[in-house]
């Protein structure tokens, strides 16, 4: 079921060129320099991110961990062009987000796939219609049904395309949300605790699916999670504490992701 179907891939490629996100292979997916972020104004102003300097190369799967309130979600929402930033530098796919106006930020968002803890699907739309809402953003009106169905099939939901969210299980809903995030073949995926609402089994499935699809489409994934069971998909683990970078561990140093020995440093880290 995870075999790639060549036809929808052609469509995806077309959609991508529509998005206008054509960058050199060497450009990092995300690059931050001296990134600070504050909530509130005046006396109530509170800094939540401090001097972050991070570079995420293309194709990397990075997991961001850290205690509650450490700024993980905030960091992700900045990269996702969901907030206006004033301090430091943040480049996504080579485009500087600091100083961008709202219309430009919206443009950047279209090239990013978002997966949230809550699936946020429209109850009034079927699974396939929810996915089509993403395709329509880039204008693929003629091929949207085919693209959406192909995506759902890859996620094992081929038999559920016309179901509405309230007749789907939690895992199935989350997979529809993932299909919606991936259908435009974004080069960057941001996921905030995508498995938090799922049981162990389906949480694992969902992450494996994301990993496979990401590798096929060679996109970058930044995922916030507290879920220890899924750490093995990561190329890199970043730990934030109180808005500061606490540790940045690359898994490339280890021979292979399936070598039992690789579990040791991770266990140690947690």
């Amino acid at each position, binding site marked *: 079921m995870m075999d790639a179907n060549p036809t929808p891939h052609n469509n995806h490629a077309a959609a991508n060129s529509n998005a206008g996100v054509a960058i050199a292979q060497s450009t990092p997916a995300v690059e931050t320099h001296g990134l600070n972020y504050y909530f509130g104004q005046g006396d109530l102003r509170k800094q939540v991110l401090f001097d972050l300097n991070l570079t995420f190369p293309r194709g990397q799967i990075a997991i961001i961990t850290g205690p509650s309130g450490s700024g993980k*979600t905030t960091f*992700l*929402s900045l990269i*996702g062009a*969901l*907030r206006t930033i004033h301090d430091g530098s943040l480049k996504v796919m080579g485009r500087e987000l600091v100083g961008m106006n709202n*219309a430009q930020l*919206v*443009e950047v*968002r*279209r090239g990013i796939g*978002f997966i*949230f*803890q*809550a699936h*946020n*699907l*429209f*109850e*009034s*739309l079927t699974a396939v*219609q929810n996915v*089509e*809402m*993403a395709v*329509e*953003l880039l204008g693929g*009106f003629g091929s949207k049904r085919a693209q959406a169905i192909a995506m759902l099939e890859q996620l094992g939901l081929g038999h559920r395309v016309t179901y509405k969210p309230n007749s789907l299980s939690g895992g199935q809903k989350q997979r529809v949300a993932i299909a*919606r995030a991936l259908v435009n073949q974004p080069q960057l995926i941001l996921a*905030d605790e995508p498995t938090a609402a799922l049981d162990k089994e389906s949480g694992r499935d969902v992450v494996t699916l994301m990993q496979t699809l990401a590798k096929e489409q060679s996109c970058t994934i930044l995922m916030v999670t507290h879920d220890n069971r899924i750490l093995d998909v990561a190329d890199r683990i970043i730990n934030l504490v109180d808005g500061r970078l606490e540790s940045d561990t690359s898994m490339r140093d280890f021979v292979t992701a399936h070598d039992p020995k690789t579990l040791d440093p991770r266990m140690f880290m947690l």
Partner: protein
Amino acid sequence: MKTPLAWLNLLHEKTRLLVAIAGVAFAVLLIFMNLGFLGALSLTATQIYSQMNAEIFLRSPQTLEISTTKSFPRERLYQIAGVEGVQQTMPVYVGYQQWRNPETRFSRAMFVYGINPRDPVFTLPELQAPEAIAALQRPNTVFIDRLSRPEFGPQTTGIETESDRRRVEIGGQFTLGGGFASDGTLIVSDQNFLRLFAPRPLNRIDLGLVKLQPGADVEAVKATVRQLLPADVTVLTQEEIIGRDRDFWIGTTSTGFIFSMGVAVSFIVGTVIVYQILYTDISDHLPEYATLKAMGYRSRYLFKIVLQEAVILAVMGYVPGLILSLGLYELTTNATSGGLPMGMTVGRVVFVLLLTVSMCALSGLISVRKVVTADPAEVFS
């Protein structure tokens, strides 16, 4: 084709949709009824003129409407009788009399027209027959309007009663309607008018009718007449005199105000209902709308969705509202036996549709702020 999100969102909550449609339909019904009453009243207030056989009307400048006239010299009619295009000029006298109900013996104010029976003042067929003209010419004989209120008593030919203490006999009937000015109407000959209203002289008249030759140019004749006559008469076409009386009844009395208030209140009720529905709908879907924004949809798109929902509600509520109104119009017309002729006009159908759409659009505009300010960053938390 784009996913019809507005439509699907509305359809998803069936109960809420039904409540919304019922609310809009109710507001539409109220608006139609208020406009219907207003229209019917202004029609009855002026339909007397459409039953008169004249293209040009003369009356005193101090006259406000048909029942509060000031008289002017009959001489004015003779002065213009020879004008090119004029076929006939006819005097009309009006006044109120106390009519005694022959059964209950209670008296009530009755409106009386005095005409020369040989003049075709009214188009009413009942007055054209030679027997009717002969009957009108008999002394102390009156014709009574079938649409007079029942309080005036029986209308059978031959019944005798008193009008301002003078014995009169009912000589026939006609169908005219008194509008605002009167609850009951009589038509009498000028000679009988003289008897009833003595000592009023016949050489001062209340209304002058000018019937034109077929094909004559109304505006040209009106201009000539205007030039010939001194300033103690106003010269009006049929359309103008109807307009003046209508403006008096609708504008000068509080009638127009009352029914305009009715329309305004219905509009507000409708706006509040639709706002309530749209606001709840938006609040329920706020995380989804914020997600759309995070995906890259612009505020403009969400704005359009809410306005589309508003327009869909408008149209879906308007249609049953219109159908119900047509039924109630007919019911009212029948219940008042034609006294309140509630008729639907194309202009009103279009006007209320536009009013309904703007009502819903207004609610949409008020409730849309919430969705436009939805923070896409909130969907992460």
